């Protein structure tokens, strides 16, 4: 019979509706403002006593706490309002001290039975919940240059060992040039280094009666160093972000040399930026003897501003990369200090060097890679950004080696407690393998986020109301069908967003609103077909049947092409725009289901199988 669905079809539709409701449901529970507690070091853990300390302090400060609980990641303190949360942060941070990180966060309030089914609210984008988005560029050429500098020490040692005389060694960009006076030395060196260091490319040249051996990495080696540097930076940044105690951070590679860092809910962006972008590292050098001179020594100033200088050997003992743990504290005079533990390789190297140098001075050098960018006019008359990287080195301490140093020791001479604790953090999290630059930064304050949600939701409500009214007036009973489908479409769309844990952004909400306008399109197409058929004198049931059938190919073709465009939008866009693409494409899919299947089911239920009933359309 015409316009009758079999029972299983109705049941299937009901099942989809039930699932949709279930998974859209968590979005009705608003997130709680909360403080996330986590341990700063591996030695301390967040336990019941930590929570007790925090709750006691909050009670004293008259701040109302909603709930305190232990989680796998640490502890969570929930509050009733954002103001309570902000007021609580300094209180809790003060009472827990440096061993714990206190971070602002929003935690879902999804009931347990829902979360056990995998249901949860849709994720909110940074523009809706506030936070920072950084795009960092890794200076991979600098990584190559750094590696060449390390190699230059090894090559010099090899040349000295074989008594091959060279005049100087210089690293410029990606080429290491060794200068010789005699051609014979050049040949000897080329043979020796070519055997000992096979991963390099060698070229010889002669100018002004001097002979040069130019050493550079092969292409394979270069790209390996570059991808290693990126990988290492990713790891380091993840460590640093974890040290900041941010909940749900995102650290992700983008393209060949960029890294995206997103910190939802973070307020102190300046601190976040200082920690993430810091390229500080330590180097340990022996002080040069009086007889040393030339290119093997470097004269550096002290960081204390006294203007003193010291001559240090260029050769490294170890760098901060060998540090396995570091913490900041105060020495007996109340000056900030950093306690350092080295890994086994670093410890061995340190004791080997210091054993032979008892009585000599060792300098600890604080090194920071920075960059300056300028805008210059290029050949085409356009302004072009030119970046020049440089490093700032300063001695933080120069002390006599009293005895062989081992795995752990301490360094002093830092400016402030903040500097010592940040240095400790950086040493713990590891140094960046290559300098990074901020190429993009977006900070959204929490109040703007809340404002955006409010505006988005209210315009969605008004939009829905207007469309529904119009459909009701224009299509009467069939308008009711279309409106029910439209409402369910939004529920299904929210359910899909939650299930895919897609991110909802402000343009994303606009996408939902736009989808509402377009979702009725399929029903409009069907209804106008039915009207046409009726006008042509076709009987009611036949008119409904062919109206749906003939509109289907049109709806299909029209929606598939829009979907294709939405997919491109997703591929090209970033951040908020991606959010728009997601809701637009999901909306097209769910609206096809509701407008075709669901509306048909309603029409069949009401009109199916009855003769000559008047159609209110």
């Amino acid at each position, binding site marked *: 019979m015409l316009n009758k669905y079999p029972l299983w079809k109705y049941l299937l539709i009901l099942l989809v509706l039930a699932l949709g409701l279930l998974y859209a449901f968590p979005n009705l529970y608003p997130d709680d403002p909360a403080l996330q507690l986590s341990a700063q070091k591996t030695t301390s853990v967040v336990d019941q006593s930590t929570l007790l300390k925090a709750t006691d302090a909050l009670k004293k400060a008259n701040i109302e706490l909603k709930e305190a609980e232990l989680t796998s990641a640490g502890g969570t303190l929930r509050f009733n309002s954002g103001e309570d949360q902000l007021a609580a942060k300094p209180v809790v941070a003060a009472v827990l001290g440096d061993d714990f990180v206190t971070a602002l966060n929003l935690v879902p309030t999804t009931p347990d039975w829902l979360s056990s089914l995998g249901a949860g609210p849709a994720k909110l984008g940074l523009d809706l919940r506030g936070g920072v988005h950084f795009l960092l560029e890794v200076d991979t050429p600098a990584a190559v240059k750094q590696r060449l500098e390390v190699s230059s020490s090894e090559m010099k040692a090899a040349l000295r060992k074989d008594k091959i005389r060279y005049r100087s060694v210089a690293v410029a960009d990606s080429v290491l040039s060794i200068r010789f006076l005699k051609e014979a030395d050049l040949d000897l060196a080329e043979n020796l280094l070519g055997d000992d260091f096979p991963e390099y490319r060698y070229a010889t040249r002669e100018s002004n009666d001097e002979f040069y051996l130019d050493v550079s990495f092969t292409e394979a080696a270069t790209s390996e160093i570059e991808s290693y540097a990126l990988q290492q930076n990713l790891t380091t940044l993840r460590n640093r972000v974890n040290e900041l105690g941010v909940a749900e951070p995102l650290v992700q590679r983008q393209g060949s040399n960029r890294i995206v860092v997103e910190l939802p809910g973070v307020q102190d962006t300046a601190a976040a930026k200082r920690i993430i972008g810091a390229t500080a590292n330590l180097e340990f050098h022996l002080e040069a003897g009086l007889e040393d001179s030339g290119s093997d020594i470097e004269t550096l100033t002290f960081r204390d501003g006294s203007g003193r200088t010291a001559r240090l050997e260029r050769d490294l003992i170890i760098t901060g990369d060998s540090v396995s743990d570091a913490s900041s504290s105060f020495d007996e005079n109340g000056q900030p200090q950093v306690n350092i533990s080295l890994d086994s390789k670093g410890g061995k190297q340190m004791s080997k060097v210091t054993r032979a140098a008892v009585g000599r001075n060792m300098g600890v050098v604080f090194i920071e890679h920075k960059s300056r960018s300028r805008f210059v006019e290029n050949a085409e008359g356009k302004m072009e950004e030119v970046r020049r990287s440089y490093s700032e080195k300063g001695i933080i301490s120069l002390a006599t080696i009293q005895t062989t140093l081992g795995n752990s020791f301490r360094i002093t001479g830092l400016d402030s407690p903040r500097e010592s604790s940040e240095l400790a953090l950086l040493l713990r999290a590891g140094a960046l393998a290559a300098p990074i630059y901020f190429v993009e930064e977006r*900070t959204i304050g929490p109040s703007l986020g809340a404002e955006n949600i409010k505006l988005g939701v209210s315009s969605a409500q008004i939009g829905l109301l207007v469309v529904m009214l119009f459909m009701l007036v224009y299509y009467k009973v069939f308008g009711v069908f279309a409106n029910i489908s439209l409402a369910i479409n939004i529920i299904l769309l929210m359910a899909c967003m939650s299930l895919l844990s897609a991110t909802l952004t402000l343009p994303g909400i606009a996408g939902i609103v736009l989808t509402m306008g377009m979702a009725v399109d399929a029903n409009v197409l069907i209804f106008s077909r039915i009207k046409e058929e009726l006008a042509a004198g076709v009987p009611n049931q036949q008119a409904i049947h062919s109206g749906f059938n003939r509109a289907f190919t049109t709806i299909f073709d029209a929606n598939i092409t829009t979907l294709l465009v939405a997919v491109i939008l997703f591929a090209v866009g970033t951040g908020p725009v991606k959010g728009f693409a997601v809701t637009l494409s999901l909306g097209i899919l769910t609206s096809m289901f509701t407008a075709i299947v669901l509306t048909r089911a309603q029409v069949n239920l009401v009109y199916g199988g009855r003769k000559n009933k008047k159609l209110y359309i």
Partner: protein
Amino acid sequence: MKVTNIPFMAMRKIVAVFSLVLILISIGSLATKGLQFGLDFTGGTLVEVAYEKAPELDDIRALLSESGYDDIVVQNFGSTTDIVVRMANSYTATLGDEVLLTLQNNGETNVSLQRSEFVGAQVGEELREQGGLGMLLALLIVMVYVAVRFQFKFSIASVVALTHDVIITLGFFSLFNVEFDLTVLAALLAVVGYSLNDTIVVCDRIRENFRIMRETTPYDLINESINQTLGRTLITSLTTLFVLVVLFVAGGEAIHNFSMALLVGIIIGTYSSIFVAANLLLALDIKREDLVPAPKEELEDELP
């Protein structure tokens, strides 16, 4: 809505002239004035702050230029208490923080950071390239899909209609100096999708009618098809426009330009799917044989 009988095809010469004029104005404006690209595409720094009570913009300008920030634009954003400070070609990534500090340290009233954005010049340029590429890719894929599902002449007609919509919307943004940022680009791609939707519905009807109405000339047939789909085209555009007006009025500053681009684009898109695409099909000399394969000879033998 009764099926109308408006002689659309009779107006095609006037409409073609109208479209051409709009396109010429748009291209002219784009060539001479260009687009006012937003921060996303030019690179630079932007700081949005909220004051407790409305400040004097001139005071802020004076304060910032005293502190050595030249080449700045200070504007209200949405309300009198919201201020946006823009700086082109920033030299450092920390500029935003510094400006905020300067404003906050001036301190009679509370100044809170709403948003701060820094986009490197390089990134902006890449986004511009990517956006243009995305647009071309979208048009290309649409062209291929329509060619496969319909016919090559339809694919030319719909892509020309889409390009027509995009150029005129861009022209609108250029002519009225509306800022063109990433969300506007997204809106433009959505317009491509939407306008395509409309055009396909009309094309679909034309294809169907070629199969049913054997004796009608293409001229009358296309006219009939447009009239048949007119009701649907207008109702859908109307519901979408309702929603967009709501977004434009109540959606807040952040998506103001976004909804404006959609509004303009969808009005143009509706116009083009009624007039431009069908007009082009006729100009391309669309025939029944393009869609319905010519009857085979054996088949004719069997007929009396």
